[in-house]
């Protein structure tokens, strides 16, 4: 099967280490993914707030290109892009008039049946069973698996994991020897796109998440979304200010944690790019 890859804009910029670690992991497990040619921005998290048609047309062009280029399945590591692509696919399949309007806007007719998978589904499908044989150094740390909002909600559309207490990332962490903790903020929002205009609120929302993880003894927070990562990592000064003390718990992408366990170097996984030093290597 031809497996497509949609990086999205964050993975080309501030979250390039996520891109690096997804690709390094795929290469280590001999998985061939091909980037959708001429992909565009999906519009998250701005378009839906100001223009419904635009918020559907931008992801629709990506879905149509993927189909045109013969992909049956597309891996979308960014949770926000994954959400927008999946929601657009659903909305257009529900409403034929809307679909034909959007098709006119993007000027590419398409069937809209490409399967969109997030990073956890990708790992579960193509990698999970092979991890045990490849482990070089167990990732023996207590971790708080942070799913965020967009991987699991809305459940009716995404149909992925459990909406209140998802477990798929926790299960993956067990396979590399980590101890996932029970904690209260698995799916609470980090403040998402308030990052620029309302940094104070991101400090508060991400602060609550980080404090709970640290209080329960997490040595790292594991994430699968570039927006969650940059809010918990890059906005650490605002978080520390909200909490009133410095918290040194690093934030690591799920692909980096697994990558480390199967012996990929920290440099190849981009761990040196985090603002909060990864102090558990």
């Amino acid at each position, binding site marked *: 099967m031809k497996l497509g890859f949609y990086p999205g*804009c*964050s993975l*080309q*910029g*501030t*979250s*390039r280490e996520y891109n690096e670690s997804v690709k390094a992991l795929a290469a280590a497990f001999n998985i061939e993914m091909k980037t959708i040619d*001429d*992909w*565009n*921005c999906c*519009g998250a*998290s*701005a*378009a*839906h*707030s*100001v*223009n*419904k*048609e*635009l*918020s559907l*047309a*931008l992801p629709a*062009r990506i879905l149509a290109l993927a189909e045109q280029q013969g992909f049956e399945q597309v891996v979308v590591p960014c949770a926000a892009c994954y959400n927008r692509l999946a929601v657009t696919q659903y909305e257009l399949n529900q409403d034929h008039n809307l679909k034909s*309007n959007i098709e*006119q*806007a*993007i*000027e590419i007719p398409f069937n809209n049946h490409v399967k969109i998978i997030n990073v956890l589904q990708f790992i579960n499908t193509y990698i999970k069973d092979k991890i045990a044989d490849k482990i070089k150094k167990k990732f023996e740390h207590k971790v708080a698996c942070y799913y965020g*909002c*967009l991987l699991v*909600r*809305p*459940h*009716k559309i995404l149909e992925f994991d459990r*909406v*209140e207490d998802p477990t798929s990332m926790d299960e993956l962490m067990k396979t590399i020897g980590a101890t996932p903790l029970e904690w209260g903020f698995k*799916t*609470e*929002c980090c*403040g*998402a*796109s*308030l990052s*620029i*205009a*309302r*940094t104070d*609120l991101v400090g508060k*929302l991400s602060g609550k998440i980080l404090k709970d993880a640290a209080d329960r003894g997490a040595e790292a927070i594991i994430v699968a979304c570039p927006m969650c990562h940059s809010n918990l990592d*890059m906005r650490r000064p605002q978080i520390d200010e909200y909490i009133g003390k410095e918290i040194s718990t690093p934030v690591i992408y799920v692909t980096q944690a697994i990558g480390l366990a199967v012996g990929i170097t920290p440099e190849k996984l981009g761990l*040196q*790019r*985090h*603002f909060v030093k990864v102090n558990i290597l």
Partner: protein
Amino acid sequence: MNHTTAKNIKETTGVDIDKCYQCGKCSAGCILADDMDYPPSVIIHMLQTDDQTNNKKILSSESIWLCQNCENCIGRCPMEIDIPKVMDYLRTESVKKKCVSHKAKNQLSFYRSFLDSVRMSGRLSELVMTICYKLRTFNLLQDVKLVPSMLAKGKLKLIPESIKNKKSIKSIFKKTTTSK
């Protein structure tokens, strides 16, 4: 009775706000309810009254711009009312009717700057977006301290990425903006 507000929302978004019986789970779970002038359940209730004064209050509220569509409310709503979709509708209406809360101007500027960058090259350039945002809001010094470490970590792309078929993106923007 002729509930115009509920009818308009239903026609545009497919969401039936009249199904809400004010259990309050959305507001209880909303991570930003504390910071909102009206929490989600109150917004829905005010819309249900179909009162022009209430509508105006909602469209000029800060709440609708604080909402990040984290979808916690719909996840917990016993009637599965898609509040985030209603929020999208309210934001669009608020811009259309030119009554965006002054407290939310920066958030709207962020969204516009984001889309400006996408319109230009087909992909988001964090640098172009930030420059557009700074020019719009005059927050020239915000996050400047981050620049040296972002450069050192290779996280700041100086040359915006561009897609090949930029025409198609320009056309998408044109068609979806003028159809309103």
